[in-house]
């Protein structure tokens, strides 16, 4: 929604109808288009109409309703409010004293590509062979049997973006998944979610390639980004020329076959960004580097959707708001490398309160900061609620009035916005996918547990019912033949 329109407005290079070969992620490919490769085959599990009532409800958009009900039916949020009736045959759950929130969305995860156990054989998260591996797709490495997925589900996580690692200037394509047990990655793919392009600033590319032909400096990093974007712009132009020729030949492919450019998987991904179909997810810690990346985006006419690991986002919170870029941050990680040194606990709060006025097409627009708490960790993803709680309280102690309802946006609505799926999930609004968590108390407590987790209205996890807790193939008979790992 918001994300889509802003993305287009920031993209002067979007001139073309979607090219068949480049359309990897459109919601509804044209009837004549070939189906996208590796298309989602996700199907919601069977569900019953379910009414959660008498709960404290955090909508996910900054609003809180007390003593309210949420009705899930046919996989959708049907009604939210104080006067909601259950249809016949519905499961009615008394949620007195409990809290209901949208499913948590982690915008930065490596589950499946860095699975547990962490074996050499299954380290598939970082294609560290060249500074630009935009041709690599994270989904081709996701192991759906990773036991980290159900652990994240128990923490209320219903969707996540799986990113390729951060060694490269261009790491490759991310994929957004629904957190459901599956045999194939296609069965987990969030239907209609756009791809992301993972880019990385700073120390990692320097460290990995410094003695392998470069880049070995931040100068080299930036030269590397620009070189690839120049190639991508030419690639896009070549394809446009071909499309024009094809149109002139009235669709006679044979007549223009000699004009058809060679497909290049790396440049397809970059061109997808230039066309606004693939979102840039940029690992970038330092404030000054974020500013440089914003300038690169302007130079080549694309948009950065989110900076990840943005430890210094608070230093440029106004610049991020002005450019409508989300900052995905940790509550308190720091010091593991130099670019993570200037941590402050108020990072998310400062990003959240940032405001900027911009002029778009002659009209003034107010833009607000977009803060997200992300994990980048198979442990952290299990308790993003606690991480948001720490960041919220730090903000309050710095004098910023942040409600629980507002802090929940950092895990839901803002995260959905950064993944381009805010029209489908992230808030408990009528018509959205019924990805919902029932917490046994305020999710901002260390003692809170996700009691029930629904995805598309189907009960995926019940803390009080072992039969409703998925075990992966890996976990069957792993310690005791008849027993369970947990």
């Amino acid at each position, binding site marked *: 929604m918001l994300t889509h329109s802003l993305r287009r407005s920031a993209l002067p290079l979007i001139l073309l109808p979607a090219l068949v070969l480049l359309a990897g992620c459109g919601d509804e490919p044209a009837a004549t288009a070939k189906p996208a490769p590796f298309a989602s085959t996700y199907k919601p599990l069977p569900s019953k109409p379910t009414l959660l009532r008498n709960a404290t409800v955090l909508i996910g958009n900054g609003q809180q309703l007390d003593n309210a009900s949420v009705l899930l039916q046919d996989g959708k949020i049907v009604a939210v409010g104080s006067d909601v009736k259950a249809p016949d045959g519905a499961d009615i759950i008394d949620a007195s004293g409990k809290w209901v929130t949208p499913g948590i969305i982690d915008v930065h995860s490596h589950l499946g590509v860095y699975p547990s*156990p962490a074996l050499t054989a299954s380290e598939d998260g970082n294609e560290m062979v060249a500074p630009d591996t935009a041709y690599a797709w994270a989904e081709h490495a996701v192991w759906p049997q990773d036991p980290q997925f159900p652990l994240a589900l128990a923490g209320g996580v219903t969707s996540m973006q799986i990113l390729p690692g951060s060694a490269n200037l261009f790491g490759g394509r991310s994929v957004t998944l629904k957190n459901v047990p599956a045999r194939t990655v296609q069965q987990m793919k969030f239907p209609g979610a756009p791809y992301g392009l993972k880019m990385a600033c700073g120390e990692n590319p320097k460290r990995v390639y410094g003695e392998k032909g470069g880049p070995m400096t931040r100068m080299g990093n930036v030269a590397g980004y620009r070189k690839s974007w120049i190639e991508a712009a030419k690639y896009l132009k070549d394809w446009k020329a071909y499309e024009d020729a094809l149109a002139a030949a009235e669709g006679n492919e044979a007549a223009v076959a000699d004009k058809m450019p060679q497909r290049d998987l790396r440049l397809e991904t970059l061109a997808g960004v230039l066309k606004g179909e693939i979102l840039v997810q940029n690992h970038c810690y330092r404030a000054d580097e974020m500013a440089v990346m914003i300038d690169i985006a302007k130079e080549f006419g694309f948009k950065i959707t989110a900076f990840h690991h943005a430890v210094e986002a608070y230093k440029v919170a106004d610049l991020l708001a002005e450019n409508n870029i989300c900052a995905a941050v940790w509550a308190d990680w720091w010091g593991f490398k130099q670019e993570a040194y200037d941590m402050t606990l108020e990072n998310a709060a400062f990003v959240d309160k940032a405001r900027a006025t911009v002029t778009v097409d002659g009209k003034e627009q107010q833009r607000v900061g977009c803060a997200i708490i992300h994990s980048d960790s198979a442990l952290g993803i299990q308790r993003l609620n606690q991480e948001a709680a720490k960041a919220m309280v730090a903000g309050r*102690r710095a004098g910023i009035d942040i409600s629980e309802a507002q802090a929940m946006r950092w895990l839901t609505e803002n995260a959905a916005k950064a993944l381009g799926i805010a029209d489908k999930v992230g808030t408990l609004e009528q018509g959205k996918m019924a990805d919902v968590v029932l917490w046994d108390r305020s999710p901002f407590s260390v003692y809170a547990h996700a009691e029930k987790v629904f995805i598309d209205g189907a009960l995926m996890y019940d803390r009080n019912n072992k039969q409703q807790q998925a075990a992966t193939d890996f976990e069957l008979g792993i310690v005791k033949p008849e027993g369970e790992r947990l």
Partner: protein
Amino acid sequence: MKTPMTQSFFVQSLRRTLLATMLLAPLAQADNLFIQNGKLYGSDNTGTPISGNVLIRGNRIVAVGAEVKPDADSRIIDAKGRPVTVGLMNAHTGLGTVDIDAEDSTADTATPDLRFGASFDLTDVINPDSVLIPYNRMMGLTRAVVTPAVGHDVFGGQSTLIRLAGDDVVERRQAAVIANYGAHANGANEGSRASTLLAMRMAFDDAKDYTANRAAFQRGERREYSLPYRDLDALLPVLDGRIPLIVAVDRAQDIRAILKLGSEYKLRLILLGASEGHRVAKDIAAAKAAVILAPMENLPDSFDTLSASLSNAAELNRAGVKIAFTSNAGDSPSHNAHLARQGAGNAVANGLPADAALAALTRNPAEMFGISDHYGKLAAGYDADVVVWSDDPLEVTSYPDHVILAGTEQSLVSHQTRLRDRYKEPADPLRAYKR
């Protein structure tokens, strides 16, 4: 008969005592404090908080209770009914030995030098000016065990116990020796963990032989040992039970093997990590081994931790095992050592009684590392290390409002809060001139 090693140990402990006595004078500058109207935790062993006051003179708590009155010159801190605890302790950190993990020039946590294993000692390099110390202190941590990361050898070196304040942060050196066992231990990673076990046995056998035949060894009339004599020296206090051996170990079978080794050599064992400890909790309790664990670690992240579970702390405690907490059982966590508190809260959420969780952050590590006569309780005669919390000390939404260390109220300012204050108004171009 006193060996040179035990002499030096004795002399050191004597010197420590003298130092502690001499330190009383300068520390007398500390305020005389009176904390009134607190919800006092850890004043006894019942776990139930009492409403009352804490009278602090110099660096000691002198009285605790509802009837306790301030002195005429006491500075009064009104706790307003908020929780008051002992300052917290993380039993496994690298505090003061690293600034930035990825920058070797700032990290002193381990040695690749084959000449030093068990004898490797970080005490004199622990930097009291490290920016990590004020940050962790303002988050309620007042004590920590600093343990080297295990480098090349089975043994990584010696632990040091520190207080998070002052120029002399060292409270106790040679507080333990650390060893690694399991998939990632030296010897096991490209071979078999059986060789690690053999290396440990060889080391202890050699240390015994060395201590019985030191003079002959010095004359060159004894066989070659598997370790340099300094490392054998460092193992002697472990062998005679004066200090514990910390063994990083996770798999249930590996824990059994270490317990057996400990019983054979009569070691005081502390298991570090012990992800599968809950499966052998009774054996650990029977062996009187203690455990330092990171309660949030529940991933089957290796074939040593397939049974890792959030209920580990609760189940070990239920079996009667003494537990203490760290924020990460991997290589010596430092930057967020205070997060041992969040771990404790999670342990409670998964079945550990709250008083046991608080004990695991205070009294238990004090007992494990031999300072429980003066730290770990909110009681008369104990060190005045006290934190007044905004709310439940195990909650992630609670913060320290007052941190008192050795009777002195500590500043709640750090590099992180300075950055916060500088960037409160992000558009201010003059911020760089504001100090």
